[in-house]
C-alpha cells in the first residue's frame, strides 16, 4: 500500500491542483433506482458509488430478529471492473471490515425502535474507485436511508484525511493514498460534532491527528450541506 518514490506536493499544491483542504468535486443524485425503497448515486472525484436501501422489511431468519428494534445491515461491495487490477467478485476481508465500520457509522442516527423485528438493508456498490470509496459509500447510504423514509435523527457525512509528503491533507485520491504516509477515514453527524466512524492507517503524530480531525470536521459540514441540498431539491423541481 505505501510505495515510495513520488513527489506528491509541488509548489504548495497537490498533483491534481488541489489545496491541502480541498475536497474533490462531488455529484449527488437522489432516488435513482426504481425497485429500491431509497437510493442515491454519489461521485467523489473519480469515485462512482451507488447506494440502495430496502426496508424495513421482515427479518429472516426469524431467530435473528430483535424483538425491540430493527436490525441494520450494510454490504459494501466493489464491482470487478472498479479498480485497475480486476477484483474477483465476492466479499473479501477488506469489504467485510468496511461493511462493519460503515454500518456502525450509520447506526447512531437510525431510530430502530420504530420497526421491531425487521431488517433495514443498505447495499453499496462501488462502480469506480479512486480512494475514499468507503466515505463516498457512507455519504450515499445516508441519503438513500432518508430517501427510503427510514426514521433518522440526522444525516451522517464522511470524508478521509491523510498525510502526504509530511503534510496533513483532505480527501486523498488513489495516488496520494498509495504513496502517502497516513490515511484516516472519518464519519460524523456534522451538526452534532459527533464522530461515528474513525480509522487510521499509517503513521501520524498526535498533533497531526488533531489537525486532520479538524480538517475532516469542516469538510463534513460542507458535505452535509451538499447532501441536504440534493434531498431538498429532489422535491423542489416539478
Amino acid at each position, binding site marked *: 500500500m505505501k510505495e515510495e518514490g513520488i513527489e506528491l506536493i509541488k509548489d504548495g499544491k497537490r498533483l491534481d491542483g488541489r489545496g491541502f483542504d480541498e475536497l474533490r468535486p462531488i455529484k449527488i443524485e437522489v432516488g435513482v433506482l426504481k425497485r429500491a425503497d431509497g437510493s442515491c448515486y454519489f461521485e467523489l472525484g473519480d469515485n462512482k458509488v451507488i447506494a440502495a436501501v430496502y426496508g424495513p422489511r421482515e427479518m429472516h431468519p426469524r431467530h435473528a430478529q430483535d424483538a425491540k428494534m430493527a436490525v441494520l445491515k450494510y454490504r459494501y461491495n466493489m464491482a470487478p471492473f472498479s479498480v485497475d487490477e480486476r477484483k474477483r467478485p465476492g466479499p473479501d476481508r477488506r469489504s467485510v471490515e468496511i461493511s462493519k465500520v460503515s454500518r456502525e457509522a450509520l447506526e447512531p442516527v437510525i431510530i430502530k425502535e420504530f420497526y421491531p423485528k425487521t431488517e433495514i438493508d443498505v447495499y453499496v456498490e462501488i462502480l469506480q474507485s479512486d480512494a475514499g470509496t468507503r466515505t463516498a459509500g457512507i455519504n450515499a447510504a445516508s441519503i438513500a436511508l432518508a430517501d427510503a423514509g427510514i426514521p433518522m435523527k440526522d444525516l451522517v457525512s464522511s470524508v478521509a484525511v491523510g498525510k502526504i509528503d509530511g503534510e496533513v491533507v483532505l480527501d486523498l485520491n488513489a495516488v496520494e493514498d498509495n504513496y502517502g504516509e497516513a490515511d484516516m477515514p472519518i464519519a460524523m453527524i456534522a451538526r452534532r460534532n*459527533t464522530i461515528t466512524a474513525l480509522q*487510521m492507517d499509517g503513521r501520524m503524530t498526535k498533533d497531526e491527528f488533531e489537525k486532520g480531525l479538524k480538517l475532516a470536521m469542516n469538510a463534513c459540514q460542507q458535505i452535509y450541506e451538499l447532501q441536504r441540498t440534493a434531498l431538498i431539491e429532489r422535491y423542489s423541481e416539478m
Partner: protein
Amino acid sequence: MGLEIMDDVRRDYIYNLVRRGKREDGRGFQDYREIKVEKGIIKKAEGSARVKIGNTEVLVGVKLEPGEPFPDSPDKGVIITNAELVPLASPEFEPGPPNEDSVQLARVVDRGIRGSEAIDLSKLCIEEGEKVWIVFIDIHVLDNDGNLVDAAALGAIASLLNLRMPAERYGLSGEGEEMIPLQDKPVAVTMVDIGGEILVDPNYNEEKAAVSGLTVISNTDGTISGMQKYGREGLKEEKVSEMVEIGIEKADELRQRFL
C-alpha cells in the same frame, strides 16, 4: 430471549457502577487487568506468545514461509495477519469462516504493525522479485473476557520480538537461523465510553455495556500507527482526543513492562 434479559440487567449494573465511579473488579477507570505475557511457548512456530489480560487469553503464533512477493514490492517481505475466534473461547463464537469481528480484529492488529513498520520488510527478501519471507501472524483466541484487540496486538509484537527465519528448514542460505530485529513496538490500547466515562481495557461485561469504543495503536516515539472506532453510537470530538492521549500514555506503560 433469556440471554437478552440477562444482558440488560448486566448492562444497567455496569452503568450504575460507573456512575458511582467504580468498576466490577474494583479497578480504576484507567487501569488494566493483570497482564501476563509468555514468549516462545510454541516451539513449532518461529515466534509465539501467550497473553492473558485478566481472563482474556490469546495465543499468537508466527510462522514464516518463503513465497512470492507482491508485484509492486519485489524486494519486500509480506505480512499476513489472521484471527480465529474459535468456538471454545466463548459461547458466542461459532465454527465457520471468519466473521466480521474476526476480520476486524486481524486487520486492526495488522494495521498497527504495518503503520509502525515494526518489521523492516526489506530484510525479508530472499531473492528479489522471486522469493521473500511471508510472515503469517495467526491470532488464536482462547478465552474471550473482553478486549481481544489489546491482547492480540501485545501477543503479536511479543511473538515478533524473537522471530527467527527458518532458513535451514527451507534449504536456504545456510547461515542457520537469523533473527529479525523489530524497528518499533506498537502497542494497542482499547477504551470504551460508558455513561460519559472513559474506561481502559474493558472486560466482557463492560464491552457489552458500552455503546462505543476506540482502539489507539501507538509507537515508542508517541506517534500513532493505527486507530479504530467501534460501536453503535458516536463519540464526541473531545472524547476522541482524550482517548488518544490516554491511549498513547498507557501504551508506553505496557511497552516498558512487557516488551
